[in-house]
């Protein structure tokens, strides 16, 4: 991560120092945007997460890899409030206790998520999908009278271009192919302008070329946003360039640069294979 990037984050952190935080606002005083400590989750006795601890810095782009069933998706479930951990702490910034917030509250606080299985609004057009995701006041009363401003329209168009779905803008999203749905979901995430993006296998089903584009996109987002990307595609992880965390049986097995973890015999044993 470049120092310049670090500076912007740091300065935004300082900015928030200088004034009183409103309740629910993200506090990045210690540069940490996501803080998981000793998280455990079990299903009928099976420990999907086992004392998992992990911190993500603001602006960081982190890749998470690990065998099938290691608990990657479950971890995202915990962060987004879908699953409540049995034990452990999960904080967004310094102050926001994720284990006590509802999904919309968490989303509102600035965490966005792309699911492993693309989930979009199938009966809405591609355009409407993006419109709904857009960062704005999402309360009932506002939505009754909401109207797209020119600005907002432009933002939707920009995103459409970015995810290459301009031509499909008015089609129902349910008719998109699998890969197109993946893109749309990424687009929705961008519209949300979250501080922290959680991406569960974003390039599954994409061509190699699109995989590269996606990697570029994520790298460009890092800095202003923090990203946590789960993937099994090592060339993609390589292209992301950031730190890599390996999960195994619900806890961290290894952490470091891709090169480092790729040579870790345990990682090769349980994950990469020979």
């Amino acid at each position, binding site marked *: 991560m470049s120092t310049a990037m670090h500076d912007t984050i740091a300065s935004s952190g300082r900015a928030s120092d200088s004034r009183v935080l409103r309740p629910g606002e993200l506090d990045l005083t210690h540069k940490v945007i996501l803080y998981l400590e000793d998280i455990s989750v079990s299903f009928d006795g099976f420990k999907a997460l086992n004392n998992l601890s992990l911190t993500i810095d603001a602006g960081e782009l982190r890749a998470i890899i690990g065998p099938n069933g290691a608990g990657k998706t479950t971890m995202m*479930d915990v962060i987004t409030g879908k699953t409540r951990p049995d034990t452990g702490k999960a904080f967004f910034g310094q102050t926001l206790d994720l284990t006590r917030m509802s999904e919309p509250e968490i989303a509102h606080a600035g965490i966005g998520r792309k699911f492993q*299985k693309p989930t979009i609004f199938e009966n809405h057009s591609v355009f409407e999908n993006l419109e709904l995701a857009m960062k704005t006041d999402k309360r009932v009363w506002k939505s009754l009278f909401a109207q797209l401003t020119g600005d907002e329209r432009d933002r939707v168009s920009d995103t459409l271009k970015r995810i290459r779905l301009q031509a499909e803008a008015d089609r129902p999203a349910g008719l998109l192919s699998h890969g197109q749905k993946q893109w749309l979901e990424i687009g929705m995430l961008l519209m949300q302008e979250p501080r922290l993006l959680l991406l569960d296998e974003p390039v599954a089903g994409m061509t190699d070329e699109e995989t590269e584009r996606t990697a570029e996109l994520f790298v460009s987002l890092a800095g202003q946003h923090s990203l946590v990307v789960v993937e099994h595609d090592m060339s993609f992880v390589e292209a992301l360039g950031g730190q890599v965390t390996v999960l195994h049986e619900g806890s961290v097995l290894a952490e470091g640069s891709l090169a480092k973890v790729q040579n870790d015999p345990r990682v090769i044993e349980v994950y990469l294979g020979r």
Partner: protein
Amino acid sequence: MSPSLHHLLRILWLTLCCAFGSAHAAPSAETLARLAADDSDTRIAAIAELGAEGSAQSVALLDALADEALALTGDGRLVILTDTGALDAASGSAIAPYPDDAEPLMVNNRVRNALQSAKAATNIRATDRATRLAAAQLLRDSAGEALMPILEPALDAEPDKEIRAILALAVARVNLASAEPAKRIRAAELLGDSSDASVKAMLAALLDKDGNGQFAEPDAEVRAAAKASILAIERRLAIADLASTAFTGLSLGSILLLAALGLAITYGVMGVINMAHGELLMVGAYATYVVQGLFRTHLPGYIDSYVLAAVPVAFLTAAAVGMLMERTVIRWLYGRPLETLLATWGLSLVLIQTARVIFGPQNVEVANPSWMSGGVSSFADIVLPWNRLVIIGFAIFVLLLVWLMMQKTRLGMFVRAVTQNRAMAGCVGVPTARIDTLAFGIGAGIAGLGGCALSQVANVGPAMGQGYIVDSFMVVVLGGVGQLAGAVTAAMGLGLMTKILEGWAGAVVAKILVLVFIIIFIQKRPQGLFALKGRFVED
């Protein structure tokens, strides 16, 4: 014993009497005349006389009166009407021509009561144990001072322990009013063995004070004995109360379950919002009715087994109707669950009207076979009706059937797979169309079985199904859609709760409270009792 057989025996008996001359003198003409009097008091006195006399011919006369076969002709003669002709009541000889103007003597409840007592007074001396037992039971509840001359000798002569205990109670009841305190004490103590609320009332009356503060029972010892006995009876009654509430709750639960099990498949497993479910119950019930009719006309001797034959017929008929529904209508609606609501609502209207056209709008009569009529008296006057006992057993049987089918057979697995992912089920080689038809047929057939059971306790009519549809959905949904164990728990829970509340607040309020309970309960368990858990539920 069938009435005609009864008649036959009576004729035989009377004939014998006439042919060989009876050991006893025939009842006097005067007594006979009093039997036909206008005034009930006179008649009842005559009945008592005949009963006390106990001659075979008197018994025959009383039986004829009880069967409303004793008639008065226009010219004032008493005759006994039989299936084949008429007999003179006084002589027992056949009369020709048949007296067309003979009017059966009116028997009202009062006369019937007198007849029963008279009959019991005779029967207590019978040789057959069962007859004596029945007579003793009757006497226990109704004996009065007047019968003491019969009761006491009968008690002394009685060899059977059980009957003796009953007779002792009967004697004790009478003795409670005896002039001798010792007898009264003994009686009060003995009556503590009773589990009869009326005995309790009788004992309690001893403890009442009159206007001057005097106890109705002057002897303190008798009062103490009575008090102790009352406590003993009360304890037994309290237990009986609990047991009977539990039984009624269980029974209601089993009926709810039977009504709902078919729906647990068609809706719970297959996802068809089957508004015609109630009508499938109706089909099963009408099938039972038809089988009963066929037995009555073709196999009258086996009428008691008609229900057994009706079980498979109800299953098959309802299954056939169900499969027809599936093939013609529901088949086109998979993946559009809400449309099934509309179409099956339409189907239910059609089925109701069809029943109305075929069988008429009125309810039809489905009788319990004799082995399902009446009940077993358990202690403290609780009668467990046979039909309800059988239905509880039947519910367990059907439940087992459904469970085995769904969980232990490949068919069950296919059905579950098809409803979870129809396209993919086809892609692993399941003939989805056939499975759908079969599964819906089985669900409908199970509903038919439910209908067969319901016909034994409730109405059979065109609109009968409408009364069950709401309850059935409540059971299936409250239990958790697709969860057999949930349906069972829900049915039993609702049954018990309804019955407990009903005893406390009455039927209407109980029903309201149960519904409110359902609303509140679902708040706590938004997916029903046995909610499906797991990560796939939300997606």
